[in-house]
């Protein structure tokens, strides 16, 4: 009987510990996903503010889409790719799936200043992810599977 009580209490601890693990991981990764969006928004706003000819490159050390989109590894952020930049709303939308919410999609938006934004495939001159101001548009050189601009 006493052993039974001890086993029940221990099992309940295990359940709570798993829940704590998933919760901590979810919140941490959600914060990282938000930071990823903030980083992109800062780059876009800076390029816009600095005028024609200015560019910023966010290399793989800053934005790693493989890890951002990874849903299984502990280093993954489970971000739903592509990251959507809404030109009309002037926002960057970051979505990710939460384990503690039955894998449902949770989205946050980060405001950006410029309206005239477009995306092009990366080139040797402008590798992924480069944000460039050509005087008329803020051009984001990124793969469409990673970043997409919508209206």
């Amino acid at each position, binding site marked *: *009987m*006493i052993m*039974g*009580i001890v086993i*029940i*209490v221990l099992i*309940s601890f295990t*359940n*709570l510990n*798993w*829940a*704590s693990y998933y*919760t901590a991981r*979810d*919140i941490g990764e*959600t*914060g990282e996903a*938000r930071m990823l969006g903030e980083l992109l928004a800062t780059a876009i706003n800076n390029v816009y503010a600095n005028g024609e000819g200015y560019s910023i490159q966010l290399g793989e050390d800053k934005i790693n889409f493989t890890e951002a989109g990874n849903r299984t590894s502990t280093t993954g952020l489970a971000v739903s790719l592509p990251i959507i930049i809404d030109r009309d709303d002037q*926002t960057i*939308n*970051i979505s*990710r799936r*939460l*384990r*503690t*919410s*039955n*894998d*449902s*999609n*949770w*989205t*946050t*938006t*980060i405001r950006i200043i410029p309206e005239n934004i477009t995306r092009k495939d990366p080139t040797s001159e402008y590798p992924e992810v480069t944000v460039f101001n050509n005087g008329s548009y803020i051009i984001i050189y990124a793969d469409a599977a990673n970043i997409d601009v919508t209206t």
Partner: protein
Amino acid sequence: MKDKRGQVSVELILVTGLILVMAITTYPYILKQQEMNKAVAAAREGATAGAALRGMGFSTTGGNEMGIVRLEDMTLTKTNTSGERDVYEITFYLSAPDSLKTNSNCWMTSVGNTVRMQARRHIYYAFTGQWVDNLPDGVNTTYYRFTTSCEWV
């Protein structure tokens, strides 16, 4: 000659018997209390997670304003009985910036709903080991039914 081997004192038998009787009689109460503790701990964890997620602007209905959302306190009140279950309402006291307080009734806001839903999800997970998407306001366990509400502080 008197055989003294393999004998225990009557005191030991009495004490062991007493412990056994106590364990048997208190077992249901221990189970019930353990269930309550587990649910409250899970609810607090879920509510904290919900507050953090909403603080970072995340929601299931699209992006929202950011702001510091905090779980300041929580209370547990027995409100009713449902069948053989005692119904307890868990009230979360939240602080948030005015931009997120879209209604004076906390439970009618997106923040309040997220916090309450996450709390219910965590209670459900604590007893079933499964995350579910939507839960009605009332999670049943063996002895209890837990409902949630929230208020601004």
